[in-house]
């Protein structure tokens, strides 16, 4: 009896230790960035253009650039990913072709992000002549995030109770009507989870935007999809390695803003999601 109790305590202790090990680095990163970057935050930092060769002033263009890239890439990847997932889980038969497609999706998820960057460069920038532009960068980021969206959407579709489909069919609805009216609405929160996961990835990646959209420095804000933009992760990289004499709090402040921006967009998406949940 006591032996069993002791074992149980050791078991739980190990599990707790593992959990703390996961939390610790996250906490450490946040504490580091907040303490070192906090002093840089100001309205000027958030909402004005850089000055003095990006050693002072604000990082507004990079914030705007990352925000625009997230929105456009998800606007592109979400519908395509959802349609692909619906096809694969609701229509496609289990045959060689769908197995190859599944394999491709899994592999796409494992491809290193710099490879996406090169791909985007050769396809969108050069071959399709979109140039180094928001559209090229967003498409590249979108393709990178497709596997996440497809996988979470399929999970969400699978989680829709069988009875909803059954009732819908029993009322004489066609397959498409069933998907449209009694499967998709209930999978929407799960699908949005995929979008939320994508936001962080898209906002934080440097490699895919390096050759496709990101600019070292732009004196003007973008006003069309064909323009280049500055972006937070790339700006951070430049400020840390390419420009001598950037104050430390300016760099950490940029990282802090990046984390904050992702957080804000995640909260916004989560609120949209909970609105869908409440409607059910």
């Amino acid at each position, binding site marked *: 009896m006591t032996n069993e109790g002791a074992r149980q305590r050791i078991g739980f202790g190990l599990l707790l230790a593992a959990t703390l090990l996961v939390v610790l680095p996250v906490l450490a990163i946040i504490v580091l960035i907040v303490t070192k970057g906090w002093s840089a935050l100001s309205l000027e930092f958030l909402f004005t253009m850089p000055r003095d060769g990006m050693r002072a002033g604000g990082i507004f263009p990079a914030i705007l650039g990352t925000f625009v890239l997230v929105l456009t890439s998800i606007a592109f990847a979400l519908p395509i990913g959802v349609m692909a997932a619906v096809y694969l889980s609701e229509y496609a038969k289990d045959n060689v072709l769908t197995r190859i497609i599944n394999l491709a999706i899994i592999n796409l998820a494992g491809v290193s992000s710099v490879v996406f960057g090169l791909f985007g460069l050769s396809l969108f920038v050069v071959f399709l002549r979109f140039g180094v532009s928001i559209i090229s960068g967003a498409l590249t980021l979108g393709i990178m995030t497709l596997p996440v969206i497809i996988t979470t959407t399929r999970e969400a579709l699978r989680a829709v109770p069988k009875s909803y489909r*059954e009732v819908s069919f*029993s*009322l*004489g609805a066609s397959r498409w009507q069933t998907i449209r*009216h*009694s499967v998709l609405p209930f999978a929407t929160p799960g699908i949005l989870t995929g979008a939320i996961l994508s936001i962080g990835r898209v906002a934080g990646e440097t490699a895919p935007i390096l050759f496709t959209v990101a600019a070292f420095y732009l004196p003007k804000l973008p006003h069309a999809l064909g323009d280049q933009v500055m972006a937070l992760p790339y700006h951070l990289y430049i400020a840390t390695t390419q420009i001598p004499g950037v104050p430390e709090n300016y760099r950490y402040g940029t990282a802090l803003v990046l984390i904050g921006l992702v957080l804000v967009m995640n909260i916004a998406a989560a609120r949209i999601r909970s609105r869908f949940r409440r409607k*059910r």
Partner: protein
Amino acid sequence: MSAKIEVERLNLWYGAFHALIDVGLSVREKAITSLIGPSGCGKSTLLRCLNRMNDLIDDVRIEGSVRLDGQDIYAGTSALTALRKKVGMVFQRPNPFPLSVYENIAFGPKVHHLAKADEMDHIVEDSLKAVHLWDELKDRLDESALRLSLEQKQRLCIARLVAVKSEVLLMDEPCSALDPMATLKIEELMRHLKDDYTIVIVTHNMQQAARVSEETGFMLLGELIEFGRTPDIFTRPQDKRTEDYITGRFG
């Protein structure tokens, strides 16, 4: 006394498993027919053959004929959606969509393009009235159907069929999730509905079959052992196995 549905020499296999064996019966129009028998004997399977819900299952093979108003529903030419509109199903677990009361009713008419937007209010009202839910729910139409009581949910599921003008209601143990009071109320509703609808009900509750139905079929191991007027089945069964079942000797 005409037959709404005629089933002849119906056989069904789930893979290699012979689940319905030479079943034949005829379902009277605007009457209640009940199917009884021990669990696993094929009642649900037979019921699901009547609106081809078994088509959704892989690896099912069906032989024989099921005629609705004289038309073979398994003939290649018959349209599945039209059949399911005509022959609706009420399931064992009340299963409203997680939508509002209003949208639950509107779903069917929308799918079948039965109503213009301005007629929908009437359809919803009439359908809820038909299942005696209107007075209870007329101020809660926008509320989620998931908040209703089990009995209300089951009524709502019946109202969904009323809304698409179903002619036949297939009910698969519609009261098994309900308490005795709610069960009696649903039975009362069924008696009302049979003036306009043909009802086939599967039940493992023999008293229920005796209370509500005009005709009863007793099934065992995939066969329809005996079929006839409900009082006859319960008072002078012809088959020894029927007698054993209704006197509670097995099942």
